[in-house]
């Protein structure tokens, strides 16, 4: 019998640890990976091409569906790019709301990542804990935009509407009694900001809880320490950004280095790792959640004291008030033109990027002066990260591939676009 040294293993595309539809062809020597060839594109929807045939505002909803666990951050980069080309100044309150929700989204994303990563590596409890804490944030999304996930809340010129004064409450049902109902609604008596404040007061304790389960956990450390090590030089070469870069000890965060919106006025720190392995990236992301919580609290305090407009007053870009549309001819025309034709963006090109929970999420927008983008390029952080898969997995065991997929925080919506 011929001696077989290497063999090829097909991983995915339907695999619970593949975080979506990742297919990998693994060339293996025993249980050691010799070469990993990820096949992507199974979720390719040509978002960029679809955006070319639609007025600008129609594509905001598509942005939510890119990285579908950090919805508003995707929108953020898109509206920033449009605003840059239009030369629009966004009201201060809208900027604070955007930052508030960008950080809420970061926590949502990291909780999803932590739960799924834990599950991949064998910590079942994490998944349940993380989803418990995601729930109030999802409710905040719903209160402000009407949907739990695909918000379409950020608009060029501001945000769709101001924060609600009342929080929706749980209603009576045969499955919960009066006492339970009161308990569920206890933190929903005030406005959305009061609700988020209540969340932020308890969240640090929740993070402590996760850390007590994982940080010193022997199994967790055995699975993560020394796995998928990236040196800062290689991280630059491979185009890694976000926590993947910070885990290697590079203190680079767009919120600090190239501040957009009101990040320059806020007080927060950038956590960095030291060894560039999966464990350090875990520590970085956990600390990022605490920092996001800190930013959320600063935003809430500011927003509670500073009412004001949340959208620019230019009806060529932002729709007029509903009441005006009923009574005022000009508003009616503005409304009609805006929702049929949209607005024309001056000829030129712009690149806008935000510190997305996964890394640098950028939008390159090329306009020829029309009401639709001429070319829209989405720079997805996950795309660069997963292209480093081969280098990160080389020499590791098969089981470590799952840990590395987890540490990259892969979501296929943004990679395949």
């Amino acid at each position, binding site marked *: 019998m011929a001696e077989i040294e290497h063999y090829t293993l097909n991983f995915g595309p339907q695999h619970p640890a593949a975080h979506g539809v990742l297919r990998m062809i693994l060339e293996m020597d025993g249980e050691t990976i010799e070469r990993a060839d990820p096949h992507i594109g199974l979720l390719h929807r040509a978002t960029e091409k679809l955006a070319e045939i639609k007025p600008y505002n129609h594509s905001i909803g598509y942005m939510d569906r890119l990285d579908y666990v950090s919805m508003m951050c995707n929108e953020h980069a898109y509206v920033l790019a449009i605003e840059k080309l239009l030369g629009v100044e966004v009201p201060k309150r809208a900027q604070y709301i955007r930052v508030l929700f960008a950080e809420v989204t970061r926590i949502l994303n990291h909780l999803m990542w932590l739960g799924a990563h834990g599950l991949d590596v064998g910590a079942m409890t994490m998944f349940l804990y993380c989803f418990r804490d995601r729930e109030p944030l999802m409710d905040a999304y719903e209160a402000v935009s009407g949907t739990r996930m695909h918000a379409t809340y950020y608009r060029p010129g501001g945000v769709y509407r101001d924060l609600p004064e009342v929080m929706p409450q749980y209603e009576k049902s045969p499955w919960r009694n009066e006492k339970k109902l009161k308990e569920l609604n206890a933190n929903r008596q005030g406005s959305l900001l009061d609700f988020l404040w209540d969340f932020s007061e308890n969240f640090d304790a929740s993070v402590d809880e996760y850390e007590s389960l994982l940080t010193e956990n022997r199994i967790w450390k055995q699975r993560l320490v020394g796995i998928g090590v990236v040196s800062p030089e290689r991280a*630059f070469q491979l185009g890694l950004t976000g926590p993947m870069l910070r885990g290697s000890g590079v203190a680079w965060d767009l919120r600090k280095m190239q501040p957009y919106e009101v990040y320059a006025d806020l007080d927060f720190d950038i956590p960095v790792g030291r060894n560039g392995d999966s464990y350090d990236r875990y520590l970085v992301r956990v600390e990022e959640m605490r920092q996001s919580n800190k930013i959320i609290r600063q935003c809430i305090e500011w927003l509670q004291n500073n009412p004001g407009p949340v959208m620019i007053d230019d009806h060529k870009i932002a729709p007029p008030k509903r009441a005006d549309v009923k009574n005022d001819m000009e508003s009616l025309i503005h409304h009609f033109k805006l929702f049929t*034709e949209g607005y*024309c963006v001056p*000829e030129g090109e712009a690149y806008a990027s935000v510190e997305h929970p996964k890394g*640098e999420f950028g939008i*390159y927008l090329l306009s*020829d002066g029309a*009401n639709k983008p001429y070319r829209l390029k989405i720079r997805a952080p996950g795309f*660069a990260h997963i292209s480093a898969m081969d280098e990160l997995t080389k020499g590791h065991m098969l089981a470590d591939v799952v840990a590395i997929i987890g540490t990259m925080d892969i979501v296929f919506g943004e990679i395949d676009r």
Partner: protein
Amino acid sequence: MTEKLLQAVEKHLEDKVLSTRQYLDEITVEVSKENLLLVLSTLSDHDDFQFEQLIDLCGVDYLTYGQDEWSTSEATSSGFERGRESIQPSQTWDKPRYAVVYHLLSVTLNHRIRVRVFVEEDMMIPSVVEIWNGANWFEREAFDLFGILFEGHPDLRRILTDYGFIGHPFRKDFPVIGELEMRYDEEQKQCIYEPVTIEERVSVPKVIRKETTGPVN
């Protein structure tokens, strides 16, 4: 920040770039294909640039640039222009049809630059994988979607489209609804591909309003 970079570009690359433009605090440099690798490696290695990261690489197809589906004329001096039906595409683009755009980031010096190179008829462009290893997949994507060939790329395969896909879907002359549709055929007991049976539909026509001007002009 951009001023300093602009000076550095003028100092070190003046004779190697075709044009330099600063707009909206972003610097765009246009390079010829012959000088591309030289300019990019200078940008990557020189002390005044230190662009250690290739943030993005993408293809652009300029086939229908500046062509609108409606011509417009002004109704009142301050009001909206009226849209009228007239589909007579005018040729407004006189440069080569395809371009590749590079976005570079320097973490050390905290600045960005955009480099554009136009692709000639032969569709060949030197690969930058040697300078930034992360370019590998970005170049595969540009090849897949636009058909741009990267000379010296180690593994130029399709990446986003299906196995066995024909054509380059992000070209402007590739229909949004695609060219083939697939269904399961009961008689042949297999999936078959046929030309699409649906018609392409424009929900909102493309309009270019002449009076829109940018923030910096």
